[in-house]
């Protein structure tokens, strides 16, 4: 027992969480006592007795779980072994539940955890659609409904879409650039373990007195500053999710800049690497703004500051400015890694080099720069300074240009390509191009001030966001998961079930979100549990398609679980792809490579005679025999 307490792990983690929570409560009690305030006053003061432990307990858990052990030893000047690999790699499933520094283990931890939250958030979507199937209140109360759609959005955005990309990239990016691991493996593990804590905080808000946070995922002040306790769970969960994604982004940037294999110049990097480079730039420079905004809301709620209180000399609109200065770049954080995945999948399965490779990379950088200049297009009706409207409209429309470049480059890649659709990944990639283009065009419509004013806060917005986030980001996530599933698990998924999942998802997405455009144009308001009877038929149709969409995800779940356990062995390179991660076994060896590969050409030279991307170890120029690609041992 004593040994179990000393050993980093779940027991010590739980103990650390308890101790830290007790410390947090004690701190509040002592500080209130010193200041002469009533000790147990809760509701009027924003529950400091809950909020402070909510900060300390997760930190205590992380410390107990072993996230800081090495650093503390280092900081205290104790002997440390930098080349200690005892926490690296997974021998059994239990190693996935430990503090593990292997980027491949962390990648799988990320993807599995985020998909858990995807299914929880999806269940909430089903409840929302069930309530909306008919006008009037049937299943949930109005306030619960508000909590449901807020939590649905927050789970999907902060603990599914953003981190699942980090997970996929965690797995494949170091392999792609020929690195043995990420630059900071321990920081990588810490960033992962902050994520489930954030997700649990969001879900745990349902237990708070007053219910889950219900001010939408945007949490606009003053709605959020006056909301019940659940809102503080949101404020703090965002801090943990944000810290996690900043640390990961920093890790990606340092890995990409300092750890590329010899010969891997910037213009030879696969576009997924470019995509993660630009996404990480966005995360590092934008995420602190949402951290700042949520801190200020928390201070207003708990400390009684006046940041957003009109009566106290605060500025209400400033919340939206600060929030959207992060959250508009955030939509590209949720999209750019997907662009990278699509480039990989399309080029591989069309057997053609990417059309306009350099322009593709530059378009990513263009989006990064422009995305900082468009934030106020979310605020056309918010009462901000009216002179800001037209400049923001221009920049918003301008950002369609680099995005359009990418769309046309994918089409150029497909043009006269030998398009293979035997992989579900390619089906999702092709469907992504169409669906995302529609979502992008409705985005251009929304960028125009008069149309935006007409459809603000209607289902047109809901339709747009789901077309770009579900038909866009989630399609690319599915493409990525199917594409790298053989690499990650060493097994093939069931292609038939993949097809069922694909067609069901496509039908469900279009059936659900296309009609939302019409009802939105007709003025059905979003974020309300009841609506006018005239929208009843459309909503019933939408709900039916939504249930189809939901049911199809169960097929995906079944396919992934069963194939992971029982699927046929996959070769090292089932898609005959060029990039380095496919030149090693599936799953890759514990340290990725015996020797760092040498890069000698571009990553997409499909169909170019004699072209080669990388020379792997044991495959020197003088060796004429090609290395067998099927190394199926796990």
């Amino acid at each position, binding site marked *: 027992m004593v040994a179990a307490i000393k050993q980093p792990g779940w027991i010590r983690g739980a103990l650390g969480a308890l101790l830290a929570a007790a410390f947090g409560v004690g701190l509040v009690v002592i500080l209130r006592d010193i200041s002469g305030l009533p000790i147990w006053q809760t509701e009027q003061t924003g529950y400091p007795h809950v909020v402070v432990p909510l900060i300390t307990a997760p930190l205590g858990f992380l410390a107990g779980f072993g996230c800081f052990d090495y650093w503390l030893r280092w*900081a*205290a*000047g104790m002997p440390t072994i930098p080349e200690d*690999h005892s926490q690296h790699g997974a021998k059994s499933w239990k190693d996935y539940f430990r503090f593990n520094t292997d980027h491949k283990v962390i990648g799988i931890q990320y993807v599995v955890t985020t998909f858990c939250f995807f299914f929880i958030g999806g269940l909430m979507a089903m409840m929302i659609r069930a309530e909306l199937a008919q006008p009037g209140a049937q299943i949930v109360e109005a306030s619960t409904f508000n909590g449901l759609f807020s939590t649905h959005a927050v789970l999907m955005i902060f603990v599914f879409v953003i981190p699942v990309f980090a997970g996929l990239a965690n797995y494949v990016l170091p392999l792609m650039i*020929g*690195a*043995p*691991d990420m*630059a*900071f493996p321990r920081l990588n593990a810490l960033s992962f373990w902050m994520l489930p804590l954030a997700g649990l905080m969001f879900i745990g808000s349902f237990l708070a007195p007053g219910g889950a946070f219900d001010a939408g995922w945007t949490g606009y002040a003053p709605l959020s500053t006056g909301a019940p306790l659940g809102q503080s769970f949101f404020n703090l969960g965002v801090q943990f999710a944000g810290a996690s994604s*900043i640390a990961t982004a*920093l890790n990606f*940037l*340092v890995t990409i*800049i*300092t*750890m*590329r*294999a*010899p010969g*891997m110049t910037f213009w030879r990097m696969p576009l997924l690497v470019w995509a993660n480079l630009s996404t990480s730039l966005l995360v*590092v*420079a*934008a*995420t*602190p*703004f949402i*951290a*700042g*905004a949520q801190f*200020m809301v928390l*201070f*207003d709620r708990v*400390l009684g*500051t*006046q*940041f957003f209180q009109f009566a*106290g*000399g*605060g*500025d209400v*609109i*400033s919340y939206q*400015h*600060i929030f959207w*200065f992060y959250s508009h770049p955030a939509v590209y954080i949720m999209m750019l890694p997907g662009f990278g995945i699509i480039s990989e999948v399309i080029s591989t399965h069309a057997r053609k080099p990417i059309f306009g490779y350099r322009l593709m990379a530059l378009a990513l950088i263009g989006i990064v720069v422009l995305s900082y200049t468009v934030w106020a297009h979310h605020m056309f009706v918010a009462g901000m300074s009216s002179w800001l409207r037209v400049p923001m409209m221009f920049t918003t429309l301008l950002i369609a240009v680099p995005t359009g470049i990418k769309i046309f480059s994918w089409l150029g890649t497909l043009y006269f390509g030998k398009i293979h659709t035997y992989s579900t990944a390619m089906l999702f990639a092709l469907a992504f191009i169409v669906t995302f283009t529609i979502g992008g065009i409705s985005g251009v419509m929304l960028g125009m001030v008069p149309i935006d004013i007409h459809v603000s806060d209607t289902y047109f917005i809901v339709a747009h966001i789901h077309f770009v986030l579900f038909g866009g980001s989630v399609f690319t996530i599915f493409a990525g998961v199917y594409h790298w599933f053989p690499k990650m698990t060493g097994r093939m998924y069931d292609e038939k079930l993949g097809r069922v999942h694909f067609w069901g998802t496509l039908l469900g997405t279009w059936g659900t979100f296309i009609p939302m455009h019409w009802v939105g144009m007709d003025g059905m308001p979003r974020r309300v549990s009841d609506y006018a009877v005239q929208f009843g038929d459309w909503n019933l149709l939408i709900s039916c398609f939504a249930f189809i969409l939901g049911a199809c995800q169960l097929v995906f779940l079944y396919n992934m679980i069963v194939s992971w356990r029982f699927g046929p062995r996959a070769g090292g390179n089932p898609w005959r792809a060029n990039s380095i991660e496919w030149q090693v076994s599936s799953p890759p060896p514990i*340290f*990725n*490579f*015996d*020797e*760092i*590969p*040498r890069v000698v050409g571009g990553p997409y030279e499909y169909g170019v005679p004699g072209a080669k991307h990388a*020379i792997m*170890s*044991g495959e*020197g*120029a003088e*060796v004429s025999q090609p290395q067998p690609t099927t190394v199926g041992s796990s």
Partner: protein
Amino acid sequence: MESATVAMGGHAHEEHHGPPEAHQSSRIDRQTLGIFLFIVSEIMLFGAFFASYFFLRVVVDPPTWPPEPFELPVAIAGVNTAILVSSSFTIHYALESIRRNNRTGLKLGLVLTWLLGATFLFIQINEYVNIGFSARDLGFGSIFYGLTGLHGAHVFIGLLLLSFATIRAFRGHFGPEEKDHLGVEVPGIYWHFVDVMWIIVYTAVYIL
């Protein structure tokens, strides 16, 4: 095999069980680049609070700033600024000392820096106690405590990092080789950032 061996620096013939050494594809080392990127992120966090400052002062535009009964102790904070700025020189002295393998200078520089930083923090807390308004007093009070408090938190983190470096210095770590004193250099870069950021905060909050 042979060609790859050259690139690897000749390790291939030994049986090794650890990972292959990563190829260093940039002149900058990981830790230094990491702290620079972290500082970018920190600047943006300050940016969020400066944005709020801009709105509360320029957009809301209260008739006087600071609002009528309140006053800011510009002179005391000025002395405090001088204390913090001088600590930038002492940390630089510590780093230069270890570069020349002067261990006494390293320890002296680190301890001095730590003491100067702690003095800064102590004076700032004193200022909070005696300043006569709280974070609840108007947008002005909120953003004053927001900006200076955020900065104070950064000084605290900086002191924590410096403590680590100091403990290690006294336990005989660090050396003149570039890679052997990253544990001083990296917290040092962060400390310089904290200093420069204070000059900006001081200028914006106290002087302008």
